[in-house]
Each structure stands twice: as structure tokens, then as C-alpha cells.
């Protein structure tokens, strides 16, 4: 049985146990030749699924990305395409 803490307190950021990547129909994919590292995709992603790499480019966190397509729609360089997930 689940025990309830005093005040019903939950841990910060604990939704991260819920991997939302399975919601995806389309998967965002980078074309690093086009990316200018403007950081817009990182800023806009509603699911914090754009992670900065050491070289300043980004990679997707497919554990959480829901495939909304905002990053691809907004990228000023057209460096992100959405491809159908195949399961």
C-alpha cells in the first residue's frame, strides 16, 4: 500500500519516472550540417527533451520527447525533420 507523507509532500522533479517518449508518433532528427547552435529548440521544447552536447550541438532525449514538432517547426535553419516512428 502507498504511504502518504505528512502534507502529501512529493519529491521535486519526480515526474521523471514517467517516460513520455512512448507518446511519440513522429521523431525529431537533427541535420547537424544545418544547425547554427542558436539554442531555440532547447528554449522552446515543452518537455525539456533537447539536451546540449559538449560540442554545443544538441541531441534529443527520446525518453521524454513527445514528438510535438515545435522544435522542427521553429528551427530557423530547417535543421530538424520529423520522421515517422517505426515500432
Amino acid at each position, binding site marked *: 500500500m502507498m504511504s502518504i507523507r505528512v502534507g502529501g509532500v512529493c519529491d521535486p522533479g*519526480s515526474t521523471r519516472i514517467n517516460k513520455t517518449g512512448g507518446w511519440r508518433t513522429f521523431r525529431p532528427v537533427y541535420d547537424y550540417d544545418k544547425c547554427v547552435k542558436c539554442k531555440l529548440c532547447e528554449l522552446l521544447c515543452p518537455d525539456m527533451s533537447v539536451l546540449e552536447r559538449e560540442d554545443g550541438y544538441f541531441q534529443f532525449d527520446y525518453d521524454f520527447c513527445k514528438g510535438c514538432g515545435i522544435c522542427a517547426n521553429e528551427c530557423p535553419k530547417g535543421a530538424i525533420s520529423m520522421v515517422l516512428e517505426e515500432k
Partner: protein
Amino acid sequence: MNFLFKSGHRGCAGCCDAMVAKFTLMAAGENCIVVSPTGCLEVMTTPYPESAWGVPWIHSLFENAASVASGIEAALKAMGKDDTKVVAIGGDGGTIDIGMRAISGAFERGHDITYVCIDNEAYMNTGVQRSGATPYDASTTTSPAGAISFGNKRPKKDMPAIMAAHGAPYIATTSLGYPKDMIKKIKKAIDVEGPTYIHAHAPCTTGWGFDSSKTVEVAKLAVQTGLWPLYEMENGEITSVKKIGKQKKPVEDYLKMQRRFKHLFTKEGGDEELKKIQAIADENIVKFGLE
């Protein structure tokens, strides 16, 4: 970047509420306590026993986020913890309709809080019912367009003006289409002492009926058409306005992207309605000097 708003929340793909919450925490930083009323934001960020918030967060009732924020602020003051900021963040229904009495009281008493209203222009969490923020002619489940109706009959309630009438030292409108504008204004609101109000326009993929990839695009069009003017008010005076100048677009560009306005393009008499909505935008352009 390590964002204080975390993944795993249950917001729809392309969720507007999630974006505004993310930007709000980017502006507020770690040292804050957040209060949210009932609504999509609360439901999708805190399915018990989880929380998407990387900071202390508390759920009030639907109607009293501003009262709970007031109490927290008063307690922090009494404890001498003045540097911890109190931020209330909730939907348009929870803020400008059922929360009106609570926010009015908090602002009149002068608590040092910042209130962010996420305006997705209806009661989304319960299935897209009309609110006081629903715009003219939008079809919702309680203002459906049909054989004899073009949808919502009333214009949007002018909440920023109502908050200005309370003597608030800082009020700003913003939009998730302009994240840097939003973060800058929320930061400023938090830094200004006293009750401050941010009204954030937030297009909802599910409730408005557009593809999840278009949340930001639709938000920008609301601003570029003049239907959602971005401005700051300090001590009751407008002190800055985002000009739209050459970017100015006809209201059709914004409306035609959304299912809630589809009837304006398919129903007889829609042309006349479009003219009325263009007149609302034109009035804003003159009133706020957007050109």
C-alpha cells in the same frame, strides 16, 4: 541547460501551459515558492505522488491561488526570509473568473507576490468551456458555433486594466511566442516590490484545434495581427509597447489556423464577422500605438 521545470509531466504534446511554466521558472530561479490553482497546469504537473516542479510548489483550490500566495508571502516576511519569491501561476479561468475575488484582495492588500496568468482562453482541463478570456466568435463547448451562432458573443475581459486599477506597480502582457520577452518581464515583475501581474497569452493545441507543432507559430500570429498587444504598465502608465510595424498581418492569418474559428470561413455571414474581428485588431493598433 538544467531547467527547473522537469520532463515526465502529462501535458499534451506541444502544451502551452508547460512552456509558460518552464519560462516562469527560468525567470524566477531556485529561490521561489510556486502556487497553482486547479487547471491543466496543476493536473498535468502533479499527478500524485509526482511533481514536475524543481522548486517548492503548492496546489490551492481553483479559486484562491492568490490568497494562498498572500499567506505564504506574509509567513516568509514574518520569518525574515524576504529573499524567497512567491509566484502564483494558473489558468485564465482560475485567475480572471473564479479567482477574481482572491486576486483582487491580494493586490489591494499589497502583498509582494507575482501572479502569472496563463491565458489559453477557455477552461481547458474540464473540456474547453468558455471563460471571460475567450475571444469574440470562438467556438467552445459552452459557446458552440452552429446554425444560428458564430460562437462566443462577448469580447475578452480586459484583465490587465482591472489589475492596473488596483494600483499594481508592474503589469505586463506577454506571449509564449516571444519567450525572451516573457522571461524578461517575469524577472522584472518578481524584482519589483509589491503585487505584480503578468498576463501570458498561450495557444492550446487541444482546445483551439491546431497541430501540436504550431503552438509558437499561432502565438506569434496573435501578436503580429494586433489581436494580442504586448505592453508593460508601470504604476498605471504604459511604459513600453512591442511594435508590430511591417510584420502586421490580417486577422485571417491567425484565425484560419484554428478549428475554433473554422465556422468563420465556412458559414454564410462569416465575412461580416471577420470584419468585426479585424476591427478589434485595428482598435488595439491605434489604442496601444502598435504601428
